């Protein structure tokens, strides 16, 4: 790296989520400096163009175009995450270990932290793929202040079941498949899943009421036509199933259901349930103090459910319970792995409360040199696949890589965006759509 006053030096360490770097300067001076005050220098002497990620050698033109278009927006598409991951060996090892523990029946909670553009969503997507491949049920949800806010647990539940996936017999399955398989289990003691599974055993799949039933238990607002006497689509016997409460104090019911689902997954031969929550900092973005308190309670409940906290196996006065039909947060012994991804908000009450509850933290910092080399080579390979007529010399690749690496200080996203745009401009100039380079 280089500093405008102290000259060149070597980075020894980082702190506060990469916002400060410990630098050993050639003069012998050793200082902690704000990251944005230093400029990373890059040694590209060892760079050999063409050393791309082998997992992507076989992609076709359309897949390549999909990736390139997403890179232009600074995003890696969901389906390509596993093959386009570089330099995250340590966080991946930690999370792989968490998956291995879950396979042994031990749930837990992890918090992935990093600044915007550091690759949190990318890492969650990665875990999502690994969990599916390892025989777990998994669901990746993204909190959102309007659509999926943690102060409305029913919406979180709806999003979780909507995105729930698992692989069985080489085929992808979803929530409905899980419940259909679970109908054979004895869960009569579960307040919601018990009557739901009993009803499933009697339902006629060909009838319209079946679809209404499914919508209802998936969290759609179908109650008025699912249970009302005059409704032509009324689900007979539906009154025995508790409503999926819409109010913010119902965190106990939804934690209970999620722990029940994780237990069910385990009983059905899967290795547990993995819940991945992106944009978890949304918990701090609520302006109403009541909503904020309920939101924090639900997150707290979820965390302790995954940690299998014995205090939550009974009605607990310290937690918020719904007043219609209070239930313990935890059903039996859950096998639940919970991973939050969040931007650090060290001065925020809700963030501190959540962070203090979670023992395992994974911090994402800047990518190292080798990772940048591999990522760049892979992008060039994908670009060539997307545009088969495109050519670029080794010398130009080195020049672009040097430029792109300077952007890495702004985050991985900036590095990827610059690399792709630079290749775009090179291609469009060669095609005559853009004027030739003046220099």
């Amino acid at each position: 790296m280089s500093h405008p006053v102290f000259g060149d030096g070597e980075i020894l360490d980082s702190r506060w989520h990469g916002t400060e770097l410990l630098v050993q300067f050639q003069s012998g001076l050793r200082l902690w400096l704000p990251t944005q005050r230093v400029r990373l220098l890059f040694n590209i002497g060892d760079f050999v163009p063409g050393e791309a990620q082998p997992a992507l050698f076989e992609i076709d033109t359309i897949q390549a175009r999909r990736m390139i278009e997403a890179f232009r927006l600074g995003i890696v598409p969901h389906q390509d995450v596993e093959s386009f991951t570089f330099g995250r060996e340590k966080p991946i090892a930690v999370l792989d270990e968490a998956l291995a523990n879950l396979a042994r029946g031990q749930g837990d909670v992890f918090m992935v932290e990093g600044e915007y553009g550091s690759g949190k969503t990318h890492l969650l997507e990665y875990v999502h793929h690994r969990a599916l491949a390892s025989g777990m049920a998994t669901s990746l949800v993204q909190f959102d202040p309007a659509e999926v806010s943690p102060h409305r647990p029913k919406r979180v539940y709806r999003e979780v079941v909507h995105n729930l996936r698992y692989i069985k017999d080489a085929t992808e399955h979803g929530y409905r498949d899980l419940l259909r398989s679970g109908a054979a289990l004895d869960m009569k003691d579960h307040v919601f899943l018990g009557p739901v599974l009993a009803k499933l055993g009697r339902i006629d799949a060909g009838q319209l009421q079946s679809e209404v039933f499914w919508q209802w238990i998936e969290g759609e607002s179908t109650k008025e036509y699912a249970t009302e006497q005059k409704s032509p689509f009324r689900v007979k016997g539906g009154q025995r199933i508790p409503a999926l409460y819409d109010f913010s104090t119902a965190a106990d019911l939804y934690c209970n259901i999620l722990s029940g689902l994780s237990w069910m997954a385990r009983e059905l031969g899967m290795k547990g349930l993995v819940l991945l929550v992106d944009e978890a900092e949304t918990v701090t973005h609520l302006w109403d103090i009541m909503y904020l308190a309920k939101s924090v309670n639900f997150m707290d409940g979820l965390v302790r459910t995954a940690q299998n906290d014995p205090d939550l196996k009974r009605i607990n006065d310290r937690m918020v319970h719904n007043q219609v039909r209070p239930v313990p947060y935890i059903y039996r012994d859950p096998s639940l792995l919970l991973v939050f991804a969040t931007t650090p908000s060290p001065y925020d009450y809700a963030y501190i409360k959540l962070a203090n509850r979670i023992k395992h933290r994974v911090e994402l910092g800047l990518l190292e040199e080798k990772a940048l080399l591999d990522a760049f080579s892979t992008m060039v390979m994908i670009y060539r696949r997307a545009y088969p007529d495109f050519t670029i010399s080794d010398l130009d690749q080195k020049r672009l890589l040097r430029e792109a690496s300077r952007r890495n200080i702004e985050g991985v996203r900036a590095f990827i965006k610059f690399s792709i745009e630079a290749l775009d401009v090179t291609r469009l100039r060669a095609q005559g759509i853009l004027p030739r380079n003046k220099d």
Partner: protein
Amino acid sequence: MDRQLARAIVNKLGSTGTPPEFGIEHFTVGLEPYLKVIEDEYLDGILKYNLSSFKLITGNYGGGKTHFLYTVRNLAFGHNYCVAYVSLNPTECPFDKLELVYKGIAANLIAPRPADAPTAVRDKGIESVVRKWHDDQRQLHDRTDSLRKYLETLPTTESTSFSNAVRGAFAGLMAEDGEGFNDVVQWLKGEDVSKEMRVQHRISERIDKATAFRVLRSLIQWVHAIGYTGLILLFDEAERGMSISSSRDKRRALDNLRQLVDECGNSRLPGAMVFYAVPDENLLLEGSGGVYEALKQRLRSAFNETNPVGVRINLEELGIEPAEFLKRLGARLADLFEAAYEMKLPDAKRDAVLRTLADIAISAFAFDVGYRRLFVVSVLDAFHQLRATPALEFGRKEAEKLLRVTTQRLEQTDKEQVEKEEF
């Protein structure tokens, strides 16, 4: 060129300088590199493989954003896309209220059609698209049971309510049940409907801020399922959709935009492309906090120069000098004017008008791309004067006076328009 069409274009351009939504290619200048890339790479490229894309369009007031969007719309029609051109504003269609944005999209949805005539009101909106869908299918299926079977096998969308609603509307038309059709279409337009109607059609969701994204995704999935290549969303005047008093609402609006970008990046809107036009990207991105940072990282280009495939398309960087731009634009306007009034302007006088007005417009408005709009209105005014008085001597003094008067008139019109819509 058709005289009526030319006259309609000249009248529209001459009154406010804003482009008409038809015949746009007759006076398009300098957009070729962008349009070629958009057509080749996107409309005829990745969108046809069910991928999606997002572009931020920047260009100052009068800098050609609306013109550009209309041109994209016409290209999209040629490739069998449905299009919704939505003019955002803080009251009817603010971006922090996605349910109102959906309403705007539903009200402005248009099935592919010829681009050289104005769109009739009856051809605009989701209701007309459903009617056309029904009429087209009716011609393909000669028996009612075959039509019913087609409807049953139609792929469902992410929102079951949306899927039920479009099927309900189609079934209403099949049964010639006008009232039933109107009831369901009311929901599809984002308006409130009775509980009984929702029960009858198994519509469980309201279209509100919590469901708007799902319904929008479902709209795109449906457009695709009924045989169109995809959907092009053109959001114009986006700065007005963001001009919200509370910073909380603005953050919400920006977060919605960030989510829309991510949906496109992950191809969750198959065959859809979103264009979002603002005068200056800084209006969106200059702020502190997570949502600004997240958007900046996605929407800022790494390059300042023109890059038609980059996320930002800058209409101020067309790669043509202003004088050359106005020269080519002026020649096209002259052709239009002559076709509209079936006459020939005297060559020398016509050239003098164009040259003088271009010189003054550029020098007086050197730092504002709005000179293009001023030039258009002034040139057409001068042509009218020349037509009425062929012997007119149009010198520098006359040109300065005309530009001054036109500037005042346009400012007054803009002010009235904004006040009319916002208060």
